[in-house]
Each structure stands twice: as structure tokens, then as C-alpha cells.
């Protein structure tokens, strides 16, 4: 039990502290990401996003310490991508059972990342914004800041659990050449969840609500000439900001998300299981630029999203195996409005679905194999009315993954994962198709002082029409106790 707990803990260190804590980048549905993250066999907390089911079934205190180091080499890059991105992070996670009814989990993360040779963009992620702030310089930008994550869970009754999760993060960024743009991001993200579970744990259902508030401030100054900045409206047309000693941008995003989910094991027949989750969310982003005393309202953009995830599984206990069929559906609509006039600047809508088949088998007690195949398709409509640009295509995606978990002996485990994704990306990637290969190797061992884990990630993104690629290298160290 203890080994199992720590194995889960080591993986949580990677997953919880790198993905769930998304205090700066908490858009509901994001663009392609570089991290290998296997959602298909996710924990209850991961698929439901409900804090009330966090660590369900785990009733021990434990602490995790983690450090990670990543290097993203953009040999293939878009105009506003950095040529390289180096990141470091240290994190501490603690799960504390306060009493028979209460659990407190906390995490503290400090991240540092540096974008090298980044042209123009003053945004951390230029292509995830419709109103991006730029200048005409090429330089290095450093981002750093702490994030806090607190989850308090309390049993209302034996079967009804409530939880409150609060994330708070501040991040500063500084470009090292004039306009020496300084950015400050602040995020508050609050979730309140309620879950019901049967006494034997075969049925779990819950609901949660989330509200968040993101504020970003940018200040670009210049030493000699006035700061010259541009605000992109979409990706094809920009607004030259009036030159002045300092140019500012502020964006303020508020949003909500609500989700409902259930999981039932032994549904109708023994071994059959079904889990389902539905999420609804919306954000509103207000962008102002100009001088700090007289900012100009540039525009608003609104995003609404629906996400449905279903997994039907069948478990054969005798051979410790499980087979699953997943259906996911995402629908996202964005529109942006001019700040001064009652007109739409752009529209985006996507409806994507994917089917997955996954398999988990443990032919031997020391070996667990997880594998899966996923195909998906997305109908993407994007129009920039100011630039008269239209993108209307159906994009395909397929994914194959395999994970090995080998118990080397009673105190150490070895993990290996590989995935291959073939994906047609959005237009701004400038290539019709990516072939993505991600691999990781992880190992952990129980020592007298605690469990130490080590993980290496390597990823390669090959665009179909270029001999340049994107490479990712990551190393993580974890200590759990």
C-alpha cells in the first residue's frame, strides 16, 4: 500500500505541480502543449477537475518536493516564438489529514523561465491572445514568480464531501532590451466542489464551480526614443500605438467554469464502468492600451466552451486488466468586439471530438502496461474581419501511446512512456501537419529518508513541410516522504 501510495505520489508530483497549478495560464482550453500528459487514464481528480474528489481513497499524510528543468528548442518557429525557452521550477506539495473529516493539501511553486531571442512579442504566449502587445526588438525575456495552491476538503457526511481550492499566482516578466517591457500577471482562481461517493467507492458523483480573475499589466518604456509598440488584432493586422515615453497594456480576464461528473463501477454487469464529465465555461477579456493615465479600450473578447468527456471501461479482475473506450467532445466559440465601435473584429468556433481506445493490463504483478489509440477531428472556423482573413477547415488528429510501469523490486519502479501524435495544427503554425513524438523515462526508489524519483522527457515536433523541428528536453527530480 505504501509503495503504491508513493508511486502515485511521484506521478502526482509531475502531474499536479506542473499541470494542475496553472495559475498564470488558466485559459479553459489551450493550444497544443509540449508536456507529455496522459489524460486517458487520469485520476478522478484530473478528469473531473473537482476538488472534492482530490486524493480520494488516500488517507495518509505525505510531502512531495520536486524540481524540474526544461529546454524547448524552436528550430522551427513562428515569427513571434522565441528561438529557445529554458525553464526551471521548484515545488513543494503537502497532503495533511487534519482529522477524520478534514484534509488540507497545499502546494508552493516557484517557476523561472526565459525566452531567448524572441522577436517582437511582449506576450508570454503570443498566439494564445487575440490582442497581443509587441514591439520591434529582439531580445530575451525572463519570467519568474511564485504560485500557491491550497485545497481544503471536508466530509459533510460519510458520503458527501465538500472542498474549496484556491490558487493564487504572481509572475513578473522583463525583456532585456529596450523597450524593456515589464509584465506583471496576477491570477486568482477559486473552485468549490461537492462530491458524493458510495461506501465502497464504486460510485462517485460531483459538481463544482470555478471562478477566476486574471490581470496582466505591461509597461514598455524606451530610453532614447519613445516606446513604439503595436497591438495585434488577431494575427494579421496590428494597431500602431502612439509613441510615448511609456506604453502600457492591461488585460483583465474574468471567467467561470462549472462541471458535473459521475463515475460508476460495476455498471449493470460486474467489471463494466462508466465515467462521464461535462464542463461549461466562459471568459471575458478586456484589453486596454496606451498611456497609464488615459488608456484606450481596444476591445473585448469572449470565450464560451463546452467539454464532454465519457469513458466506458471493462475490467477483468482475474488478469488485472482494463479496457476503455473514450469519447470527448469540445465546443469553443470566441468573438472579439471593437473597443469603440459595435462591430465584431473576429470570430472563432471549433467543435472537436475524439475517440480513444485504451488498455491497461498487468500480465505480471511487476509489470503494468497502458496503451491506447486516439483519433479526433475538429471543425475550425476562424475569421478576422479587419484583415479579411478566413480559415475554415477540418483538422484531423491521431495519437498512439504506450506506458510501461515495471516494479524492479519492492522498493523501486521504472516507468517508460512513448506517444506519437499526428496532428493538423491551426493556420498560425504555418505547416499542414505535425508529427510529434514524445518519450519519457522515470525511475523512483524508496530510501531510508523517503522516495526519490527521477524523470526525463524528450519530445520532437516535426512539421511536415520543413526540415526544422521543435525539440523539448526536460528533467525532473522529486522527493516524497
Amino acid at each position, binding site marked *: 500500500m505504501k509503495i503504491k501510495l508513493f508511486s502515485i505520489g511521484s506521478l502526482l508530483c509531475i502531474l499536479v505541480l506542473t499541470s494542475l497549478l496553472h495559475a498564470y495560464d488558466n485559459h479553459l482550453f489551450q493550444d497544443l502543449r509540449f508536456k507529455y500528459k496522459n489524460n486517458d487514464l487520469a485520476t478522478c481528480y484530473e478528469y473531473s477537475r473537482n476538488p472534492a474528489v482530490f486524493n480520494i481513497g488516500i488517507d495518509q499524510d505525505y510531502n512531495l518536493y520536486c524540481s524540474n528543468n526544461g529546454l524547448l528548442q524552436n528550430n522551427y518557429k513562428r515569427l513571434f516564438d522565441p528561438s529557445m525557452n529554458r525553464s526551471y521550477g521548484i515545488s513543494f506539495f503537502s497532503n495533511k489529514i487534519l482529522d477524520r473529516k478534514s484534509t488540507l493539501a497545499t502546494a508552493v511553486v516557484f517557476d523561472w523561465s526565459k525566452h531567448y531571442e524572441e522577436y517582437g512579442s511582449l506576450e508570454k504566449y503570443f498566439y494564445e491572445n487575440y490582442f497581443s502587445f509587441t514591439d520591434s526588438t529582439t531580445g530575451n525575456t525572463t519570467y519568474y514568480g511564485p504560485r500557491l495552491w491550497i485545497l481544503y476538503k471536508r466530509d459533510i457526511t460519510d458520503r458527501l464531501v465538500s472542498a474549496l481550492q484556491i490558487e493564487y499566482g504572481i509572475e513578473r516578466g522583463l525583456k532585456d532590451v529596450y523597450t524593456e517591457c515589464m509584465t506583471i500577471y496576477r491570477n486568482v482562481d477559486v473552485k468549490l466542489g461537492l462530491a458524493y461517493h458510495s461506501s465502497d467507492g464504486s460510485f462517485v458523483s460531483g459538481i463544482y464551480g470555478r471562478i477566476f480573475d486574471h490581470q496582466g499589466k505591461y509597461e514598455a518604456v524606451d530610453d*532614447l526614443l*519613445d516606446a513604439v509598440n503595436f497591438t495585434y*488584432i488577431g494575427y494579421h493586422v496590428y494597431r500602431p500605438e502612439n509613441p510615448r515615453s511609456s506604453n502600457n497594456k492591461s488585460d483583465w480576464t474574468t471567467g467561470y467554469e462549472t462541471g458535473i461528473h459521475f463515475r460508476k463501477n460495476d455498471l449493470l454487469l460486474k467489471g463494466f464502468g462508466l465515467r462521464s464529465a461535462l464542463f461549461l465555461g466562459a471568459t471575458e477579456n478586456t484589453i486596454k492600451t*496606451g498611456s497609464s493615465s488615459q488608456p*484606450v479600450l481596444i476591445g473585448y473578447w*469572449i470565450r464560451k466552451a463546452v467539454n464532454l468527456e465519457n469513458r466506458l471501461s471493462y475490467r477483468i479482475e482475474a488478469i488485472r486488466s482494463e479496457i476503455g473506450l473514450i469519447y470527448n467532445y469540445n465546443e469553443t466559440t470566441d468573438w472579439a*468586439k471593437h473597443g469603440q*465601435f459595435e462591430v465584431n473584429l473576429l*470570430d472563432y468556433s471549433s467543435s472537436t471530438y475524439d475517440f480513444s481506445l485504451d488498455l491497461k493490463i498487468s500480465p505480471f504483478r511487476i509489470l503494468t502496461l497502458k496503451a491506447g489509440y486516439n483519433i479526433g477531428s475538429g471543425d475550425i472556423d476562424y475569421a478576422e*474581419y479587419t484583415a479579411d482573413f478566413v480559415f475554415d477547415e477540418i483538422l484531423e488528429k491521431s495519437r498512439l501511446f504506450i506506458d510501461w510501469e515495471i516494479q524492479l523490486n519492492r522498493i523501486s519502479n521504472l516507468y517508460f512512456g512513448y506517444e506519437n501524435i499526428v496532428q493538423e495544427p491551426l493556420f498560425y503554425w504555418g505547416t499542414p501537419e505535425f508529427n510529434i513524438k514524445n518519450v519519457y523515462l522515470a525511475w523512483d526508489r524508496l530510501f531510508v529518508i523517503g522516495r526519490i524519483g527521477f524523470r526525463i522527457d524528450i519530445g520532437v515536433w516535426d512539421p511536415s513541410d520543413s526540415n526544422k523541428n521543435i525539440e523539448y528536453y526536460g528533467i525532473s527530480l522529486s522527493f516524497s516522504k
Partner: protein
Amino acid sequence: MVKKTIIPIFLIALLINYSSCFKEQPNFNDGNLDVCIYVKIESEFYGINEYLDSTEVTLSTIEYDIPDIVATTDSNGFVRFNGLSWANYYVTGLRKQYPVPTDYGFENTELRGGQEVVPDNEVYVDTLYLTGPQPPGIKLNELYTCGPPNNFYYYSDQYFELYNSSDDTLYLDGIQFCRMGSTGLVNVTYIFQFPGEPVIGREHPILPKTFVVCARTAFNHRKFVFQNRTSVDLSGADWEFVNESDPMDYDNPDVPNIGNILDGHYRDFSVNLLTDVVLIADGSDENYLDGIDINSVIDCVEYSSSPTHIKEIEEELDYGYTGIGMMTYSGKSRERKTAGFDTNNSTIDFEIISKPTVGYQHERDK
């Protein structure tokens, strides 16, 4: 049990209701704006009231990186721009040759006009009035204020260029050179004055079609400060602003002075690099403490780098302002498009030029 059911329902209802606070999506998409312009000339003096055909109309905006759109009016003086992006525009009209009646028959003159277009409807319709040049005379022809490229905040090489656009010799005697405040003619910040008797003095002539350079500091800034890399040589300026109350103010003994006449002012005639109003008056209004008499004003130019700048000087003196988009320490200057051309609207009379032209007129891009 009822309570337990109500809580999640209430939670969902609350969050969905929260989204109703978001903005409503507009019914129209950008790119559907039409701007219709009638171009007209009206002059009671000449008895003219007609729509102008064959007139070049230019629509420009600084809100997007889109090029200017140029079209020519039809026989009804009408031009239409279709499918534009919604933005604030500036429309200018140029009729290169228009016969104006004179004592000797007709004389071809250039007509210009300009005004803002702030759309409020999908089809914006307005009339653009063109005017001929103001009567010839002494004009503020160039204002170089923003400083040369440097990293020590040097802008002492400011100068103002005057031009006599008339065919007669005029005189600078007693002419007042003012930096105005932000509240119009009543608000004088500095006032310097040429020597001599105002209006009637004949000691300091300015010949027809010639330039006069008035330097803040008549010094070779280019050679002695910037080692010939940038800035200007003002050692040969025609006039130099000197404030005798300022012992640190450099005075070139070879250049006559325009002196400060405002008690309590101890600085040189320096103006804001990007936003200010400069005015010349004939000096007949001796009591300048209550402002400058509008009838004594010879010429006035307002400038600002900001497109959202709020006008400071009365529109009778300058309908617009020049210098939008200029940057500090960029070494750029503002000069009339053609020497002495003045329609009382600096927005269309002036343009930003890449470098100062001390004592001569820049050549326009073809």
C-alpha cells in the same frame, strides 16, 4: 436531502447567470463601413459654391497598419470608399489647380481641406470643404523641436523657420514669438520679441520667398556636441532666442537676438518636444499678460504626437495640429508641405520630415 439537491442547482444557476454579465455580441462584422464624401468649395468672398470634380481624396487612419486609400471625385464631386474597417479616419482633399477670380482674371491655385471621419453608421456621409491658401505673409514654416538622436536628453538644437510667402518684403520688427499654454490665446507661457517697432518698424526685413531661421541656441550642435553625426549647425542662424535673465543662456555674438519680454521668466525659448503651440503675433498687443489679441496673430501652429490630443489653441488660428506619431529624440522635424502653404489647418499643411531642413524647403516624395 432537499437542501443537498438545491446547493448544486444553485451553484450551476449562479455561474451560468454570471456569464450573462458578459458583453453582448454585436450584430455586424468589421469591414462593412462605407465612407461617402462630397467635396465642395464655398467662398462668399469669391462667390463660389460648387462641388469639385477631379479632386484627389485620401482616406487615412493611424489605427491600423493599412495604407492610405486614394480616390478621385466624380463629376458630382462625390467619392465613395467601400468595405472599410471601422476606425477613426482622416480625410484630406487636394485639388491641384482651381481657377480663382482675381483683379486680372483667373489664377490657378491649389485647394486643400481635411477633416476627421468618426463613423457612427455603416454608411458615413459628409461634405469636405476645400479652401485655398490663406493670404500670403510671414509663416511658421518649420518647427524642429523633438531633439536629435542621443542618450543624454539633448534638445537644445530646437529652431523655428519663418518664411515670407508674399511677393513683398515684410518686416520682423516687434514681432512676438510665443509659446502658448493649454487654454488658448489667454494663456501665454513664454513671450519673446524681435527688436524694433511693432507694425511700423522697417529695420529687419524678410525678403519675398525667403526663409529666416530662429534658433534657440545659435551654435553648431552638430559639430561640437555630436561630432558631425547628427543634429544641426545653427551657428549661421538668422536670429537667436536669448533671455538676458538667464546667465547660462548661450549668446552667439554674431547672431541678433530675440529677447524675452516676460517678467519672471528665466529660461530660454524652449518648447515641448512633442506637444505645444507656437504663435507669432505682430506685437501690436502690448498687454500680453491677459493673452494675445487674436487680430494681432500672424500665424499659429499646434503640434502633438498624440492622435487623441485635445486641441489647445482656438480653431480660428489652427483648425488641426501636426506631428502625430513623432517620437522624442528621433531627429525628425515638421515642415509645411510646400513653403508657406497655409490653409489654417496644420494637420494638412504640415508633414513630418525625416531630418531638419535649416533654411530651405524639403522635397516632397513623389
